[in-house]
């Protein structure tokens, strides 16, 4: 078993894809919203498992990715760790390498992107680096596949080789570590030196594990920490990180030579993309292009698929006849599947593709940089802009896109906010009902109300969500051409993953509602809901059933309302006020079933239900208030 580890943006996933090809599986780490990519590699007739650990900068407990990675390395003990290192940002990468060495695995370094480093005027002496770190170093250019055979060969040799040795820190720290190691008795999968370091650093996870079994050691640790802090005059976390970076700096200086390169087109593009004015122009242009591209392509594909399924439906009914039973089978079994296909393939596929391209090219980070201050007003930071923006097309990719935030807290807020953004389906209702029959200004007002809601609820979520809020801090990677192979593979695997996880929820949800309709339970529901729909929201009783079906696909509410009321001229069945209230409730009440499925997949059933519940409550309460306000100001 090989495990790939390294910083973000170093080409780790590219190496993973090159090594495993189509023999891979992308899923989640158990119970975590962290992507777990595993695959197999064929080397001289041997099958070797490869796992791609998340891209991280440290082995502390800052993000879920970090915790997952270090537990994996220590507990699962992969045969060899392939540490992918970006040759063009060697110093910072080595600070992470030094942390990996602390875990004392068998290790090989893939010195990647040496072409980009050379373009930046950085030359790395591979042999020197290998000597300094005490592990083999193989230069690679992953996007071109260069050096990968050598890498695998070296890794295979390392399986039988010795474990890596950690690099020593300053003597005062080494003394502290030694003193703690001597006292340490608790057995853990981690090396005792590493445990000692983490105890010194006050790592909450490790403290919990050790102090539970050996509480008396705490005083010893505290004493050693005091000594070190006294000598350095800084807090221990700062001292240790400085030590690592100090070592990284020395090693990178010893093993690299710098020449000053000319300014390239790439540099100019990078400057342009974060320019205070032109940067925004470029960003808006790119976003519009992406947005327009995804949704016009998606519409076209969705339309085509709908037509295909229409034909299938006709064929089906012609073959088996149109009876209650056949009707039921189609609606309850097939329709849920169709709903999924019509959403997943046309919109989510292209979305994953574009997101992956933007991410790998390094542009996404620039957009996050430019939008940071705007996103702070709704309780998020810059990285949240992409998912929220995508929500205007479809909430499903938006919720899934919330993964680009680092912590569980930011992910949840981001997905919540994104699920409130009026997607294309909701826009159909707003435009088809309010803009057409009440007036365009009223439709704009609806959007405005929604934005205010997003603003207010985002703020509230920011306040109530657990944990410390963290601002934007991220690397701004240099621009580069993404690898098409990696992008295509990643898109395919993510899409497959989505289909496996979200389809069952959609199909079962659809089935339950159709069964209820078949058994005539909907009339009961209508009655049960009438205190809310009729008395509080002032809507016709049929709206109850419509709203239930709207959970499946929101654009259906309009069609269904028409068919239940027997006309599509809504002016004859609803007053303007009713239309406005109806459109408002549809806009806010619950994310559609596909979005709920995405929420369940990302955050679990409980949080998905809380988000849906909050949105239903907000829609109903505010819907009633809006009704009364509109009547009060005299709208008919």
């Amino acid at each position, binding site marked *: 078993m090989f495990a790939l580890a390294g910083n973000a943006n170093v080409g780790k996933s590219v190496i993973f894809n090159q090594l495993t090809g189509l023999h891979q599986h992308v899923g989640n780490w158990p119970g975590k919203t962290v992507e777990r990519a595993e695959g197999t590699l064929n080397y001289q007739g041997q099958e070797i498992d490869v796992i791609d650990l998340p891209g991280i900068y440290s082995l502390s407990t800052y993000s879920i990715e970090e915790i997952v990675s270090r537990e994996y390395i220590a507990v699962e003990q992969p045969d060899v760790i392939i540490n992918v290192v970006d040759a063009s940002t060697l110093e910072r990468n080595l600070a992470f390498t030094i942390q990996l060495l602390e875990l004392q695995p068998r290790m090989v370094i893939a010195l990647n992107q040496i072409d980009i480093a050379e373009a930046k005027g950085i030359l790395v002496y591979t042999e020197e680096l290998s000597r*300094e770190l005490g592990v083999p170093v193989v230069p690679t250019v992953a996007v071109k596949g260069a050096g990968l055979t050598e890498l695998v060969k070296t890794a295979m040799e390392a399986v039988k080789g010795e474990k890596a040795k950690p690099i020593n820190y300053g003597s005062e720290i080494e003394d502290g570590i030694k003193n703690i190691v001597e006292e340490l008795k608790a057995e853990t999968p981690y090396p005792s030196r590493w445990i000692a370091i983490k105890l010194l650093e006050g790592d909450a996870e490790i403290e919990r594990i050790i102090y539970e079994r050996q509480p008396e050691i705490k005083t010893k640790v505290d004493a050693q920490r005091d000594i070190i802090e006294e000598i350095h005059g800084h807090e221990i976390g700062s001292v240790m990180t400085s030590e690592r*970076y100090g070592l990284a700096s020395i090693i990178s200086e010893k093993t690299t030579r710098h020449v000053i390169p000319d300014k390239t087109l790439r540099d100019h593009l990078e400057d342009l993309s974060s320019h205070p004015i032109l940067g925004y122009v470029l960003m808006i242009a790119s976003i519009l292009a992406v947005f327009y591209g995804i949704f016009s392509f998606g519409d076209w594909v969705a339309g085509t698929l709908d037509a295909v399924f229409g034909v299938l439906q006709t064929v089906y009914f012609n073959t088996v006849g149109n009876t209650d039973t056949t009707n039921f089978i189609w609606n309850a079994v097939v329709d849920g599947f169709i709903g999924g296909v019509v959403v997943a393939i046309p919109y989510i596929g292209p979305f994953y593709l574009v997101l992956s391209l933007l991410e790998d090219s390094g542009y996404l980070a620039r957009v996050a940089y430019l939008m940071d201050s705007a996103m702070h007003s709704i309780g998020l930071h810059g990285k949240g802009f992409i998912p929220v923006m995508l929500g205007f097309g479809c909430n499903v990719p938006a919720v899934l896109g919330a993964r680009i935030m680092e912590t569980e807290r930011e992910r949840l807020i981001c997905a919540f906010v994104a699920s409130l953004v009026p997607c294309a389906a909701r826009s159909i209702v707003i435009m088809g009902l309010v803009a057409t029959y009440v007036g365009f200004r009223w439709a704009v007002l609806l959007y405005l109300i929604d934005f205010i809601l997003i603003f207010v609820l985002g703020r509230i979520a920011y306040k109530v969500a657990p944990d*410390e809020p963290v601002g934007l801090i991220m690397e701004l990677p240099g621009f580069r051409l993404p690898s098409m192979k990696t992008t295509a593979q990643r898109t395919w695997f993510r899409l497959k993953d989505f289909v496996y996880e979200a389809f069952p929820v959609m199909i079962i949800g659809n089935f339950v509602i159709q069964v209820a309709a078949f058994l005539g339970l909907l009339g009961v529901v209508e009655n049960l809901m009438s205190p809310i729909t009729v008395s509080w929201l002032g809507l016709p009783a049929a709206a109850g059933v419509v709203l239930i079906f709207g959970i499946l696909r929101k654009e259906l509410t309009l069609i269904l309302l028409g068919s239940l009321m027997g006309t599509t001229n809504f002016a004859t069945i609803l007053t303007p006020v009713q239309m406005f209230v109806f459109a408002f409730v549809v806009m806010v009440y619950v994310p559609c079933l596909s979005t709920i499925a995405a929420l369940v997949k990302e955050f679990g059933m409980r949080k998905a239900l809380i988000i849906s519940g909050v949105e239903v409550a907000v829609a109903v309460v505010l819907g009633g208030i809006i009704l009364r306000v509109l009547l009060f100001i005299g709208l008919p």
Partner: protein
Amino acid sequence: MSSASVEEYLEAIYGFNEKGELAKNQDLSEKLRVSPPSVTQMIQRLAEEELVAYEPYKGTQLTGKGMALAQKVVRKHRLLEVFLYEKLKLPREKVHDQACKMEHSLTDETAAALCKALDNPEKCIDDDLIPECSLIVESCDECEQARSKSAEHPLITQLSNLKPGEEGKVAFMRGGRHATQRILDMGLTPGTYFKMVNAAPFHGPVEIEVRGTSLALGRKLASQVYVEVDDKDETWKRPHPHGPHHNIQR
């Protein structure tokens, strides 16, 4: 030029910048009661010393270095005002002028002592914020130890105050442990040299160059990082943070 008058100018410019405005020459001339030509001359000098950035027809803004100096003086001024008004019970209208005269001769050491004696006030008598202390301390006891080390404290300001093109050296961090650890993990450890590259408009994040990489840092995080901006030291470019005690050994 006397350091007192430099300090007066920086203080005045700080007053405008604090409200989010650029300091216009005319306003400075009124506030400092000097003729417009001498303001122009002085601003030029300050710009040469890289204490301010001047945009023709728009006004003047402090650079990181200018900001560090100004914060030091303003802090002394406001501490003195509190002292004169609350402890010595001087009439309110006299406090400002007196503080203006005293602030230039007050050593950093005395200012720190004054801060402790006044129980670390956060606001001055006009309700303006007193710029934060630039010592690596979390309590007044630590402060006592820190200030006994030297009478002159280094020029320190928040990273967010630096202007594009300026360089600095990380001194220390204030703020949550989580955020601090993240900043450290990304390579901004105490003693690290960095260069400010860009600052996004609307109080957006800043872009800095550190350890051969570009880093984006939200404005709030950037204001929790305190940096040294004094460039008298010739070893400024030397990237190594922790001195010579590292020996790579097994």
